[in-house]
């Protein structure tokens, strides 16, 4: 993330006329064009993001249950009650939310960390020119190009206990001892969802880091090689620092996507059978809303999630920017 370059937008420059003393402001020709071009973006941003978000915040103060769902206007205002229930960690609703939060934290750390490592390794490996480089670059991007649903459904089939490819490979082909385990229920569900999420996410890290590496001049490597630097030292002292701006954005984006991941658990486990070990927070909130038609409670949990993510993002940007300034 660049902080030193201050890119000025297409600012409206007032032509230096012969300075008429009258304060009457004359607008330059075509002054409205930037506004016109921005208008669709702003309108859609308001409609698609801001309005639903404000509606969600409003709902979190209502007791919006099925008795009022056909007519929202009549739902009673309950103030902070929905928040109090969600944050009462001695009650079962709050306890469930807290558990789901910890599962999601573990999930996010593993998925973002491993995706980054894999993406970095692949990007560095493919930095050198060699025959077949284009093939590998394309191959690695396949999971990212596949439609989400198709990819995850395939994993769901592979993770089946009796008929799935994974158990077949491990136990029938490799001959591991013992019984075939369940992958989609019980404790293993956590590892299944971590694997699928990494499979989904790492090509993105690879793509971003590969693009970042293009901007590192090869002369730097050559000079360091002359000085006797080995590849790992080059990576640590040249590649990493040069990629800092890319990494700063990449990690943040991956964190937000992973923490909010809804599609992976929804498709992998189905809408009604998510196991406790794979109870990611977005999905937990969905269930809290739809299992009992309690949309006020679900909205309150969503707002809490939003606040948490805002705080983490804010703190992260603060730290990263300060480091950049000191660097």
């Amino acid at each position, binding site marked *: 993330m660049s902080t030193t370059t201050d890119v000025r937008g297409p600012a409206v420059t007032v032509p230096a006329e012969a300075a008429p003393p009258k304060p009457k402001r004359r607008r330059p020709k075509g002054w409205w064009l930037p506004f016109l071009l921005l208008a669709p973006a702003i*309108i859609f941003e308001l409609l698609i993001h801001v309005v639903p978000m404000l509606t969600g915040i409003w709902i979190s103060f209502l007791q919006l249950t*099925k008795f009022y*769902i*056909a007519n929202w206007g009549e739902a009673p205002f309950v103030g902070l009650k929905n928040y109090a229930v969600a944050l009462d960690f001695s009650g079962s609703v709050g306890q469930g939310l807290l558990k789901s939060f910890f599962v999601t934290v573990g999930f996010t750390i593993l998925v973002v960390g491993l995706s980054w490592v894999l993406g970095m390794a692949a990007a560095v490996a493919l930095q050198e020119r060699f025959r077949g480089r284009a093939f590998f670059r394309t191959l690695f991007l396949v999971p990212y190009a596949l439609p989400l649903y198709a990819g995850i459904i395939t994993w769901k089939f592979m993770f089946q206990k009796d008929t799935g490819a994974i158990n077949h490979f491990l136990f029938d082909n490799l001959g591991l001892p013992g019984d075939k385990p369940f992958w989609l229920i019980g*404790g293993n569900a956590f590892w299944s969802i971590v694997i699928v999420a990494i499979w989904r996410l790492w090509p993105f890290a690879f793509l971003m880091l590969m693009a970042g590496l293009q901007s590192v001049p090869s002369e730097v490597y050559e000079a360091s090689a002359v000085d006797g630097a080995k590849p790992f030292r080059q990576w640590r002292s040249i590649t990493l620092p040069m990629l800092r701006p890319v990494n700063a954005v990449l990690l943040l984006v991956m964190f937000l996507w992973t923490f909010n991941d809804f599609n992976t658990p929804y498709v992998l486990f189905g809408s009604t059978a998510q*196991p406790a070990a794979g109870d990611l927070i977005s999905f937990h909130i969905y269930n809290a809303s739809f299992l009992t*038609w309690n949309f006020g*409670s679900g909205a309150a949990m969503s707002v809490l999630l939003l606040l948490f993510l805002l705080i983490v993002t804010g703190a992260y940007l603060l730290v990263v920017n300060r480091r950049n300034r000191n660097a």
Partner: protein
Amino acid sequence: MRKRAIVAAAVAAAVSLVVAGCSSSGSGGSASGSTITYWASNQGTSLDNDKQVLTPVLDEFTKQTGVKVKLEVIGWNDLQTRIQTAVTSGQGPDVLNIGNTWAASLQATGAFLPYDDANMKAIGGSDKFVPTALKTGGAEGKPVTSVPLYGLAYGLYYNKKMFSDAGIQPPTNWEELVTDAKKLTNGTTYGFSLAAGSYTENVHFAFINASQNGGEWFDSKGNPTFTSTANVQGIKRYLDLMQTDKVVNTSNAQYDNGVQAVNDFATGKVGMILSQNNADASIVSNGMKSDQYGVVPFPAPAGAKQIATFPAGINLSIFKNTKNKDAALKFVKYMTSEDTQSKLAKPYATLPVLDGVKPTFTDNAEEAATFQKIYNDMSKPLPLVPAEDQFENTVGKAMNDMFAKIATGSTVSESDIKSAMQSAQDQVKQSLGG
């Protein structure tokens, strides 16, 4: 100013694009020549099979009335969410199938058309329905918002050949059921198959087993009482088929619909299943003939209450905000007419919901009589309270989790069940504003 006008026009165009995307497509008009949307639930062997069964019936309706019907068949795991979304957005079908156990809950949303005197008359009067079936249409004391379409009941299906090979008789109480199931369980076959990953099936048997113990799930004020000892022990008895009796393959924990268990039964992998009478269609399509299996009531433990089912089934509702009310009422009348009912009774293997009609879903007279007896004499209705669907969702999901625990090698004790029920009860209470 001309430029301002251009800007305004551009903004207006952008807004109208968005609004057009949101607005609904339906239009009003008189019954004849209009089109209604119908959501059917999955009653046949697959969603495609449902389309094949229903299409000629709906074409006949179009021929009679000039009203076109747009059909969508929806699987059981999605139906409830789809209905919730439709209620919330106000963008639903005109007519839809609901699980009759949801009737009181959906009635409470106020989104469905009450069959008051005039509407009831328009569909042929309340007298034409079996009273037990019509009672499932909504909470007591209010005009129902759904009318019965198909009648269903649970029965215990057993494989006659496997039973005679093992030298056993169909069970008449729970203890015999477990003994029989153990005799049928060896390395390759199991005594039982359960849809242990299906929240609807699971909650039904939580209810039936608890009811045999005298358990109640709601008090007279409609507040949940999930944690009573009778309920906990009833659930334990059902879970123990997999946990301690080991007569159910642990793989069943991933069976998220009843058809998977039925297929195991029809292909001779298991000796018994618990299923509603509509299983007949799937059994026969798997190659098992109707004289190769028998049906007895799901047995209670010796000395317990003889409850084997609840009056299950599918009801028909009309969305209140339909723009085709007349056409929708005509459609409900047509679907609940004796003629249509007799056409659908066989492919869907349903019990009659019309008064005075004999069951025709099977050629097996003994099976028909057994199901009729279970439905009429051994059934207890699920609670007709607004929170019923939440009971199904929360308790059903808790049951899924407990079966998953057992299948992956953990133990579920009575106190585990009690705390799971406490958690389900807390969620329901919160949504009731408690």
